[in-house]
């Protein structure tokens, strides 16, 4: 290591300093504050008490509601991720293979929903799934009873699935991009018909992409707030909505902070578990 290298390094750090400074100010410091807040306590009257204790965590852990909450969040996210992958896979496959001249346009259409804010999409769903919305209007017109699809779990499931679909499609497309088209051709020359070639050769090779897409959708679903809050009508409880309520309604900041830290740790554990499982299953 000579003088030239160390001046290079120094100039590098100077260049990165403003960005790192902003990061420290806007991200690191708040995260530390959050962690610190989780160690405070709440009195019975709801006032915050400065402390260095784990009693808030204990309080939350003792409440069985929070365990139900965790389970519901996990199952909802798993549903959304799985359905998004199932619906997204044919779309990604189609986009990848099609020779249509609308290919670029169709790909943009599949990803465009990301441009639209989550709130806007909820409005659309409310109009489709609402009591006077599209689906129920059709049901009424043929004389069938209406189905409640908003302000409940069903609505949140549908909305959440749709909101993560663009992400799964992107992840799957990225994975397909790494496929070698000649492998299916090789299978064909060995006598496999298209369906079999697909299931025996192509599909297994896309499993890593499917897995990555699923994980992405799952992580996004667990953190999702807008869709459960707006489409659940106050009746669907997930981690995100609880954190929000604790922070802005009951103003129990220590609890909100502790739940946030809990959610982050949960995410970490899930990612680690996924990585371990993937490593086990990859040939």
């Amino acid at each position: 290591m000579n003088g030239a290298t160390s001046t290079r390094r120094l100039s590098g750090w100077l260049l990165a300093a403003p960005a790192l400074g902003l990061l420290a100010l806007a991200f690191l410091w708040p995260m530390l504050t959050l962690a610190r807040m989780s160690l405070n306590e709440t009195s019975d009257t709801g006032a915050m008490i400065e402390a260095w204790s784990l009693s808030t965590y204990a309080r939350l852990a003792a409440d069985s509601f929070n365990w139900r909450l965790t389970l519901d969040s996990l199952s909802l996210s798993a549903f959304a991720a799985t359905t998004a992958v199932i619906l997204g896979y044919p779309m990604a496959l189609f986009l990848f293979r099609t020779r249509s001249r609308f290919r670029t346009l169709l790909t943009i259409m599949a990803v465009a929903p990301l441009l639209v804010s989550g709130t806007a999409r909820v409005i659309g769903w409310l109009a489709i799934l609402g009591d006077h919305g599209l689906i129920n209007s059709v049901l009424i017109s043929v004389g069938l009873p209406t189905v409640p699809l908003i302000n409940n779990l069903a609505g949140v499931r549908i909305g959440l699935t749709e909101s993560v679909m663009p992400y799964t499609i992107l992840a799957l497309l990225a994975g397909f991009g790494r496929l070698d088209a000649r492998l299916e051709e090789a299978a064909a020359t060995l006598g496999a018909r298209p369906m079999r070639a697909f299931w025996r050769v192509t599909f297994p090779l896309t499993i890593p992409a499917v897995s990555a897409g699923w994980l992405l959708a799952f992580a996004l679903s667990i953190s999702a707030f807008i869709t459960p809050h707006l489409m659940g009508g106050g009746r669907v409880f997930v981690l995100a909505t609880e954190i929000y309520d604790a922070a802005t309604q009951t103003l129990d900041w220590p609890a909100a902070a502790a739940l946030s830290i809990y959610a982050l740790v949960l995410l970490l554990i899930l990612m680690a578990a996924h990585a371990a499982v993937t490593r086990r299953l990859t040939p």
Partner: protein
Amino acid sequence: MSTGPVVRLMAVCGYLVLLSPLAVVALLSVSSGAFLTFPPPGFSLRWFTALAGNADILSAARNSAVLAVLVTLIALLAGFPAATAIARERVPGWVVLLLSAPLLLPTLVIGLALLMTLQPYGLVATWPGLVLAHIVVVLPFVVRVMVSALQALTADMEEAAATLGAAPLRAFLRITLPLAMPGVLAAATLAFLVSFDETVISLFLVGPRLTTLPVALFHYTESRTDPLVAALAVSLVAISIGVIALVDRLVGFTRTVGHVE
């Protein structure tokens, strides 16, 4: 290999699920009715007119635009030098990971953390507070886009310029900057859009005196009474598309993406 009919059918179903809410919102925005019923009773532009006349929403729109411009500028000023350092490997590899960290966390948690941090200083519902809040999620995008643009293009070109006698500053002005410009524009556009559409973090940091357009939309949807929300949503999307189209017109995104590759 072409796609079979089964795949095509399933893909169509997928598209239906994916795009129906967007189509419905678009149609609702021109509904003549007073409720979120679908199909709409008739068509009219009354809700767009109502939007234009709503002072609160207009001020929120103004705030969002100004905020987005401010945040974009700051992110570019801080992000470009950092991206240069990263792309030329003048800082260790983990720096880019650290700068990307905010993208890994739920915006809800980030918003909450910022609320707890800024409230004791009275910075909630203030411009500095909101700028800081948006920077958190915008800066990582800006850095990543510019790093990839710089990496793809100019490594040995800067060296070539040096061997042809260009001192570092001249090489930067004549070679690096012009070649990085498409990447900078792509980053700026992305920064503007991310900030303009940012909902959840802003939710924690706005107040009656200072709010943003996405938050206004959010609160209106909570009470969900009329198609005004649809008109507002469509306007938001239209602005986003407008920005992209404008930049594409000026620079050409296909060229930008081609360059970045």
